[in-house]
C-alpha cells in the first residue's frame, strides 16, 4: 500500500464514522416513525440507579439505532440487500407477486390456544342465548400460494378446524367464504387486515349462517377514501418501494344510526368512519376510530334483534354492514374492557342489555395469541 492510499483509507474511515456521529448529535430526535408506525426510543435520562440496573445502557443502544441519521433509508437498503442475496423475505415478511407483502403464519403455543378455546366452550355451554363463533383466516392462508414454495407457513385452516371441533358454540366457516373470492382485493397488500370487500364476504357468510338475509353487494356503491395506505406489514418489512393500498368504504353510516364510544366510563359520540385518521399513518383506524373497549350502536331497525360481538380489530371494517340487520350492535374488545369485567361478567352484560345473540369473532392470529379471552367467563 502506498502512503497516499493509506491516507485515503484513513480519511474515508474516520470521516464515515465521525460524520454519522456528528449528524446523530446535531439532527433533532424524532418522536414517531411514520414508516414504522411506532414511537422511537428517546434519549434516556442518566441516573446511577438506571445505570446499575442496566436500563440506561440498553436504552441508550436502542436510542442510537432508532435515532440513527436517515434510519428509513438504511432499513430499505438492508431489505434490498437481503433480497439481492437470494432471500425472498426480510424480517419474516415475504415480498410476493404484485407488491403483496405477506407475513408467514406461525402456529401459536398449544397451551394458550387451549386456554382460549376452553374459555369459549365454557361460555357457550353456560349461555342461555345463542353463541356464534367465527375465526377469520389471514392473507397467509387464503393467499398461501403467493408465498414461496416450501417456506415455513403453518396452516391456519388446521387451527380453525381444531378450534371449531372444541368450541361448543355454533361455528361459522369464513375460510371457504374468503377462499372462493381469493382472486379479488379482499386483503390489503401491505397490512394484515381484510379490506372492506373482504369484510363484506365475511359479513355475508356470518349473516347467512346466523339466519339473517345479508344485504347484497350490489346494493352498495364503493367509495375510495385513500389511495396512500401503507399498513403494518409494510412497516415491518423495510420494503419501502412497494405501491400503497387503497381504502374503500362500502356501507356509509345511516343518518339515524348512532354510535356511542365507551373509551372512558362516560361515552362519547363515535362514528363508523373517522376521516381524521386518513391524515395519519395508521389509516386503518379510521374504521370505527380505532381500538376501544366498547361501542354501542343503535339503528333505525328497532324491530330487529340485538347482538353483542366479542372481537378484535378485523371487526371494525365489518360492523358498518350490520346496521340493516340489528337494532343494537354492541362491540366489545376484551383487551381493553378488562377493568369493567372485574365486578361483572359478559353474561351479566348480555342479561342487563337484553342481548339476543352473541358472536365471538377473531382473526386466527389474535385468537391463538391473545391472553384476554379467558375474561369471557
Amino acid at each position: 500500500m502506498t502512503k497516499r492510499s493509506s491516507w485515503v483509507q484513513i480519511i474515508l474511515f474516520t470521516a464515515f464514522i465521525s460524520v454519522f456521529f456528528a449528524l446523530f448529535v446535531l439532527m433533532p430526535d424524532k418522536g414517531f416513525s411514520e414508516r414504522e408506525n411506532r414511537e422511537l426510543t428517546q434519549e434516556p435520562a442518566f441516573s446511577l440507579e438506571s445505570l446499575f440496573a442496566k436500563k440506561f445502557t440498553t436504552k441508550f443502544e436502542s436510542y442510537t439505532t432508532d435515532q440513527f441519521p436517515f434510519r428509513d433509508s438504511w432499513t430499505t437498503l438492508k431489505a434490498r440487500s437481503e433480497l439481492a442475496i437470494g432471500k425472498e423475505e426480510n424480517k419474516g415478511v415475504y415480498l410476493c407477486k404484485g407488491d403483496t407483502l405477506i407475513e408467514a403464519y406461525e402456529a401459536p403455543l398449544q397451551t394458550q390456544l387451549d386456554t382460549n378455546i376452553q374459555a369459549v366452550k365454557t361460555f357457550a355451554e353456560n349461555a342461555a342465548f345463542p353463541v356464534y363463533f367465527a375465526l377469520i383466516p389471514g392473507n397467509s392462508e387464503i393467499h398461501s400460494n403467493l408465498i414461496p414454495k416450501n417456506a415455513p407457513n403453518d396452516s391456519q385452516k388446521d387451527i380453525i378446524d381444531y378450534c371449531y371441533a372444541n368450541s361448543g358454540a355454533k361455528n361459522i366457516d369464513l375460510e371457504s367464504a374468503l377462499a372462493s373470492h381469493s382472486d379479488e382485493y379482499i386483503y390489503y397488500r401491505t397490512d394484515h387486515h381484510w379490506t372492506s370487500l373482504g369484510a363484506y364476504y365475511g359479513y355475508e357468510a356470518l349473516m347467512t349462517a346466523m339466519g339473517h338475509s345479508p344485504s347484497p353487494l350490489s346494493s352498495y356503491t364503493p367509495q375510495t377514501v385513500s389511495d396512500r395506505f401503507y399498513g403494518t406489514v409494510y412497516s415491518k418489512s423495510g420494503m419501502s418501494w412497494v405501491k400503497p393500498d387503497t381504502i374503500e368504504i362500502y356501507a356509509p353510516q345511516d343518518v339515524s344510526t348512532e354510535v356511542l364510544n365507551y373509551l372512558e366510563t362516560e361515552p362519547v359520540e363515535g362514528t363508523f368512519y373517522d376521516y381524521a385518521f386518513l391524515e395519519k399513518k395508521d389509516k386503518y383506524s379510521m374504521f370505527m376510530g380505532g381500538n376501544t373497549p366498547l361501542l354501542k350502536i343503535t339503528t333505525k331497525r328497532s324491530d330487529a334483534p340485538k347482538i353483542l360481538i366479542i372481537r378484535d380489530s378485523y371487526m371494525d371494517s365489518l360492523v358498518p354492514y350490520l346496521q340493516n340487520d340489528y337494532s343494537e350492535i354492541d362491540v366489545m374488545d376484551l383487551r381493553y374492557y378488562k377493568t369493567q369485567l372485574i365486578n361483572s361478567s359478559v353474561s351479566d352484560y348480555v342479561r342487563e342489555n337484553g342481548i339476543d345473540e352473541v358472536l365471538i369473532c377473531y382473526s386466527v392470529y389474535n385468537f391463538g395469541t391473545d391472553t384476554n379471552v379467558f375474561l369471557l367467563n
Partner: protein
Amino acid sequence: MFVYLPVVLAVYYIVPWKWRNPWLFFVNLIFYGWGEPVYIVLMLFSIVVNYITGIFVGKYRDDNKPKAKKFLVINIVINLALLMFFKYFNLFAETLSQIPGLDSIHTLNIALPIGISFYTFQTMSYPIDIYRGDGDVQKNFISFGTFVALFPQLIAGPIIRYKDVASQLNFRASSAEQFASGVRRFTIGLAKKVLIANNIGKLWDTYSVMAATNLSFVGSWLGILAFSLQIYFDFSGYSDMAIGLGRMLGFEFMENFNYPYISRSVTEFWRRWHISLGTWFRDYVYIPLGGNRKGKNRQLLNITIVWALTGFWHGAAWTFMLWGLYYAAFLIFEKLYWLKVLEKAPRFVGHFYTVFVAVCGWVLFQLTSLSACASYYKAMFGFGAGGFIKPVDTFYLASFAVMFVISIIACTPLLKNLYKKLPEKTQSYATPAIIVLILVICTAYLVDATYNPFLYFRF
C-alpha cells in the same frame, strides 16, 4: 461504534503521548462498565491485585526464587478463584446438589462478567512472564491497567501475553500505514461479523430449536454447517476487529485465526483456530506439566489434561469438557498413528476428515444437553425421526445458497490471494472503495437490527 469509536480515536490522537495511556485506561473502564456497571469494581480489584503481586514477584525473582514463587502462587490462586466463582460456581453447585446429602447447596444469581475468561488468562500471563524473566515489572499502574482492560480484545480475544505487549505499553509509534492496515482489518472483521456470521446464524437459530421429528438428515447438516460458519466468522471477525482497532491505537496483537477450515488434520486445525488460546495453554500449562519431555505416556496424559481444560474454558457446562476431550482423542490418535497415514493420503482426504471432525464437534459444543446432542447426531447420521429431507429444508437451502457459497469461499485464502495479484494501482483505488461499501452495508444491517448479538460487545 458510531459514538464510542470516534470519540476514543479523536481524543487519543489529540492528546500528547503521556496522556494516551490514561485516556485508554479511562475509556476501557467505560467500555467494560457499559455491559455490567457493577463489574468495574471487579475489574479494578483484579488490576490492583495483579499489579501488587506482580511487583513482589519481580522484586524477589532474581535473589529469592522461593519467595517470588510464593507470590506467584498467591496470584494464580486469586485469579483462578475469581474465575471459578464467577464462571463456574453455579455449575459446581448444581452438580454437587444432585449428590444425596448435598442438596442444600444452591446456585447463586450471578451474571457472568463479560470477558472474564479472556482477561483472567491475560492477567495471569503477567506474573508468570515476570517470574520467568520474559518480561519486566510494569511499575506504572495506569499502563498496567491499560494492559488488563485493553478494550479492543477485552471481550473475545485474542488473549495477549504480557511479554508480547510489554514494550508497546511504554512506547508505541503510530504510522499512517499501521493505522490504515488497522482500518482494513477492522472493516473486514466487521463484514465477517455483521454480514456473514449474523446472517448465516439465523439458519442455525432455526434448526437448533427444531423438534426431533422435524429435523431431517439434510436439515441437520444444513443447520450445523451454518453454525460452523457462524462461529468461525463471528469469532475471527471479532478478532480481526480487535487487531484492527489495536493497530489504530498503535498496538500489534498476535494473530488469532489462520483459515482453520483449510486444515488437513485436526492437529493443524488447532494451530490455525484460536491461536492465542492454544499458545496460552501450551506456554502456561502444557510445557510446565512437562510437555513431551517426560516420556510418551506422560505426554498423552498432558494432552488430555490440557484439552479437558481448554474445553472447559469455553463455557461452564460439562459438555464443553467433553468437547475438549473429543479433540484430545483425535489429537492423540493423530499423533500415534493417523497423521502418518494422512500425509500419504490424497489432500482431499485430510481436508474432508478435518472439516468433518470439526463440524461434528460443534454439535457437542453448542447444544447444551447430552440428550439434545444425541438426537441431533441421530438426525445427522440418518437415524432421526425426521427422515431424509423435509420440504422446508429445500426452501432454506435455496434461501441461503448464496450465503453458503460466499462464506465457504471466504473460509479460504482464495480472495486474498486473487486480490494480491491485482496491480498496485488498481488496489490503491479498489481498497478505499471496498472499505466504504462494506461500511455502508454493515451500517444498514446494524441500524435495522432489532436483536443484534454484536451490539452486546458495544463498540
